[in-house]
């Protein structure tokens, strides 16, 4: 019987602070992952039962400050202000104490109850940093607990403290700025004394001086006369300090963080460069860095594909007799056939999700937990910039090679809407594992491996050109890369497990319904006997323009479900898997190119729909259909000259 009552806590901290590890350790599998209302940003909630209490834990997005630079930051700050959590646990990366403390100071300005978790204290020690956390406790007059989240150490102490502090008024020392700034804050606070807003008055005053857009907007509605005063005060500050008032305040805050760090941290310098530094130097070097990247990514793709092909083949032989069994027991009526197509869709999903997506996610999260993913962003930033996005976009491309669905979902790591959209569009052009089946099964096998690899290169060039064009067409400034580079650390199995589980779950939930429904619909059209009409009505495109057999019209429609169906159905319709007998080499290359670009598969379309609305999803589909038809037709005419 749990009767101690309910407690709400939130986890807040910068990226790479080990926040997810804390969240996973506390809530285990009692997690619920959804979206913030109206936003495409993940909301992770979970429940923990501890000492008669039901503790609801909310994991705020990883952010670097509480200004309104990104959607995540607005979400975090609004949540803390409006939902009054019983406690905010600030997860701090002890190896980057100074930078993390800047965030802590901002958090404390919100005047909410805060507990500081000095996380990764073991790694800090390894780095030669001795942190006097008692002194930090004294300076801030707040609870400070050293933790090692990956092992769960220190977390029960935090929970005990959460229960103990519940309902108590916070009494930590709110830090003071320099005299001139404090004077401005005081004057504004007096003017705002009786304002009807849920924010602390001192915090509003600080944000006004920092020229925060949201807060300035609120005050403009409620007390426009105050803004006049703000203007005068910030001008005065700017005259004294020679910088914009927002910078003056941020400057003082970070100097304070720096002063605190100097007071509490003792550094024992290593005589030799640490393993981490040497590894970092090699993996980010302008030559060896790329070599290592090619080896790691190459190894990743080769192992995922060879494992995937093996397991997928195993599944195939496992499911082989199911269709016959279904037909024997349920007959071949219209309904039974429709039912089978639904089951077939589920089986197909299993055959993609487990052999390809699962190992792909495991390796990806392993690289992420190790700290390597940020190195890829660093190495690729340059090239990505030419397409109007920054280095982080490269991660979505890599994921897209496995499957476009998680590739498009991962675009959430980009900061602005514009960049998210460009990245997502480009990801839909990345040849996923299903497209690879076509490229290698058709072109690789019957035309030559070099041609198949050439098609990959061709795809990369196309993506580059489309990126270049879309970054010109979509207005807006490209965002520069600002990314903390985490130290390498030993990957934790538990973290990898939870992250893989989350990603796989999301993939299945998004892909399954749409794949099943559209599978049934297309089968219904097929059973109604409309397919010949469709293929003949498409023949001006398929036969006249692309020089392909008329049957490909039907294949391309089925291919929307899953791209590799193009090959599977081709074999079924022709009654042979020896495609060399029925297709010429030009036709194979043309078909492979069309399959690569002509439309995202339904599962990917559903993600685009969910993330960017149906209008944009539809626009992408139409544009890609036109683009692929034109491109492949032109290519066919060039190939006619070659062969």
């Amino acid at each position: 019987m749990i009767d101690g009552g309910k407690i709400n806590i939130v986890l807040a901290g910068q990226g790479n602070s080990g926040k997810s590890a804390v969240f996973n350790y506390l809530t285990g599998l009692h997690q619920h992952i959804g979206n913030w209302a109206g936003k495409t940003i993940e909301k992770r909630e979970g429940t923990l039962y501890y000492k008669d209490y039901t503790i609801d834990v909310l994991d705020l997005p990883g952010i670097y400050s509480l200004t309104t630079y990104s959607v995540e930051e607005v979400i975090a700050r609004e949540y803390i202000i409006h939902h009054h959590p019983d406690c905010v646990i600030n997860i701090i990366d002890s190896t980057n104490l100074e930078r993390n403390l800047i965030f802590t100071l901002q958090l404390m300005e919100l005047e909410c109850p805060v507990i500081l978790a000095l996380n990764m204290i073991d790694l800090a020690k390894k780095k030669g940093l001795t942190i006097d956390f008692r002194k930090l406790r004294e300076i801030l007059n707040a609870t400070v607990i050293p933790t090692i989240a990956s092992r769960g150490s220190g977390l029960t102490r935090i929970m005990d403290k959460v229960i103990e502090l519940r309902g108590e008024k916070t009494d930590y020392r709110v830090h003071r700025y320099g005299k001139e700034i404090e004077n401005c804050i005081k004057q504004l606070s007096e003017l705002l004394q009786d304002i009807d807003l849920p924010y602390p008055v001192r915090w509003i005053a600080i944000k006004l001086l920092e020229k925060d857009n949201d807060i300035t907007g609120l005050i403009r509605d409620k007390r426009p006369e105050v803004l006049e005063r703000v203007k005068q005060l910030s001008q005065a500050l700017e005259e004294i300090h020679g910088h914009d008032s927002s910078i003056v305040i941020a400057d003082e805050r970070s100097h304070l963080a720096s002063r605190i760090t100097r007071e509490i941290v003792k550094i024992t310098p290593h005589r030799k460069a640490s393993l981490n530094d040497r590894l970092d130097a090699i993996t980010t070097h302008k030559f060896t860095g790329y070599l290592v990247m090619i080896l790691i990514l190459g190894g990743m793709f080769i192992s995922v594909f060879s494992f995937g092909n093996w397991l997928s083949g195993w599944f195939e032989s496992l499911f082989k007799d199911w269709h016959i069994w279904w037909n024997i027991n349920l007959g071949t009526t219209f309904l039974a056939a429709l039912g089978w197509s639904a089951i077939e869709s589920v089986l197909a999903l299993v055959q993609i999700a487990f052999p390809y997506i699962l190992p792909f996610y495991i390796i990806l999260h392993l690289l992420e937990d190790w700290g390597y993913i940020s190195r890829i962003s660093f190495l690729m930033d340059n090239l990505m910039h030419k397409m109007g996005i920054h280095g982080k976009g490269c991660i979505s491309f890599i994921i897209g090679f496995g499957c476009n669905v998680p590739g498009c979902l991962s675009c959430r790591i980009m900061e602005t809407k514009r960049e998210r959209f460009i990245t997502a569009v480009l990801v839909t052009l990345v040849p996923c594992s299903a497209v690879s089946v076509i490229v290698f099964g058709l072109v690789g096998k019957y035309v030559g491996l070099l041609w198949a690899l050439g098609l990959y290169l061709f795809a990369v060039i196309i993506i580059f050109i489309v990126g270049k064009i879309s970054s010109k067409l979509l207005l807006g400034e490209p965002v520069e890369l600002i990314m903390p580079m985490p130290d390498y650390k030993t990957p934790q199995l538990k973290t990898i497990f939870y992250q893989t589980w989350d990603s796989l779950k999301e993939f299945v939930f998004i892909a399954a319904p749409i794949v099943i429904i559209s599978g049934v619909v297309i089968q219904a059209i097929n059973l109604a006997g409309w397919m010949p009409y469709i293929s003949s009505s498409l023949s001006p495109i398929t036969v006249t323009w692309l020089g392909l057999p008329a049957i490909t019209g039907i294949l391309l429609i089925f291919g929307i479900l899953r791209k590799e169906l193009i090959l599977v159905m081709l074999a079924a319709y022709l009654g042979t898997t020896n495609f060399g007998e029925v297709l010429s080499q030009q036709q194979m290359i043309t078909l492979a190119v069309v399959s690569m670009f002509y439309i995202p598969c339904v599962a990917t379309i559903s993600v685009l729909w969910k993330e960017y609305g149906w209008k944009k999803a539809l626009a992408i589909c139409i544009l890609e259909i036109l683009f692929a038809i034109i491109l492949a037709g032109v290519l066919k005419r060039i190939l006619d000259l070659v062969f």
Partner: protein
Amino acid sequence: MYNVKDNTFLTDLEDGQTGVIVSIVGGRAASKRLADLGLNPGTAIKVIGRIMFSGPVQVEVCGSKLVLGRGLASKIGVELK
């Protein structure tokens, strides 16, 4: 020994060199973002490495490593230490 030059930017530093930030030329959003990460006038900043052809720069600030796009790095005025 100081080697004070006018208009030296982060991108002008050699790998391994340390400078002190004197100014950040650029929009308020970018300056604010940098300030929140601890990059302010007066902060020491060390260039660790960079990628060729105007690629990003890896720096060390306040004991943390950070990657900055070249465009941004070229807006951070520094004084060589």
